[in-house]
């Protein structure tokens, strides 16, 4: 059963079809929101909320865009709202700091070439979310620029510019790290 058929079933209230959608997208969405927020617990919570919204707002889905884009758009909106809320609090809790420190240890899949990956991770973390999210969607999640524009509700030109600027920032940062050692890049 493809995504369109599944979402049609969900629109009729089929929980089994909904469960299949959750199974298919849970890792991608959790990973995406983890890249977005930098907090694993928050990412899991937001992912659960994303899927609940998928179920309750299934009737609003129009098959003009792929289901994946729609789910990512919901996740992005939730994450943006969450980040705005956190910014309003204007304080960093100890939990956040702990989560950030634990970041390297959460579900690491590929420990090979850890030096480069670590540098890349640090460079990506240092990137502003405005540039990080399009880069993550393009280079990690594999969406096209048009799809990213749909997900983030921005013009394609803006997305192109943000990806380009994000990549050049990452490149500069990695070059500095490679030239001056792993931790020199942080200085």
């Amino acid at each position, binding site marked *: 059963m493809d995504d369109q058929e599944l979402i049609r079933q969900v629109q009729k209230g089929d*929980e089994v079809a*909904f*469960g299949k959608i*959750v*199974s298919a997208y*849970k*890792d991608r*969405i*959790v*990973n995406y929101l*983890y890249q977005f927020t930098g907090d*694993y617990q928050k*990412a*899991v919570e937001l*992912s*659960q909320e994303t*899927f*609940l919204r998928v*179920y*309750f707002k299934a009737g609003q889905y129009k098959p003009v865009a792929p289901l994946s884009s729609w789910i990512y758009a919901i996740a992005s909106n939730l994450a943006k709202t969450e980040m705005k809320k956190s910014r309003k609090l204007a304080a960093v809790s100890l939990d956040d700091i702990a989560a950030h420190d634990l970041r*390297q240890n*959460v*579900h*690491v*899949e*590929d420990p090979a*070439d850890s030096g*480069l*990956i670590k540098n*890349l*991770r640090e460079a*990506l973390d240092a990137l502003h979310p405005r540039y990080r999210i399009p*880069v*993550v969607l*393009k*280079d*990690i999640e594999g969406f096209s620029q048009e799809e990213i524009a749909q997900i983030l509700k921005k013009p394609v030109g803006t997305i192109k510019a943000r990806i380009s600027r994000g*990549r050049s920032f990452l490149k500069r940062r990695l070059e500095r790290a490679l030239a001056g050692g792993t931790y020199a890049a942080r200085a």
Partner: protein
Amino acid sequence: MNDWEILKRLDMVKAPPDFEQTVMARLSLRKREERRKRMILRWSMAGSFASLAAVFILLNIFVFEGRSPSGLAEKERDAASASSILPAAEERTIPIIETLDYRTEIRSRSSDPEAIFLLEQISDTTSGEIRY
């Protein structure tokens, strides 16, 4: 090969093992909440419509009923019947009779010898009294 493929080698996090169960549990909880909210909304809507209807009915009975056209007509009819039962004696007529002296009329025209005034009664009815 795209240089940025390297990003795909970044640490990928996975959903926790109980993710689906948690989502399904939250779903049933949320459904129950939604049902309760819908029920509350339905009852409150019904309640507000019922109270609106009650207010409308009460206004109709106690306020608009007295001002209705049929009510006014009834009042007019009542007033008319009340005036008709007044005694006839209470209708008062004041007769005023003005006398006319035709001699002065003739005298004023007497200088004109050719003028002949014929004064005759042109109506069989007697002169009516002027009523005030």
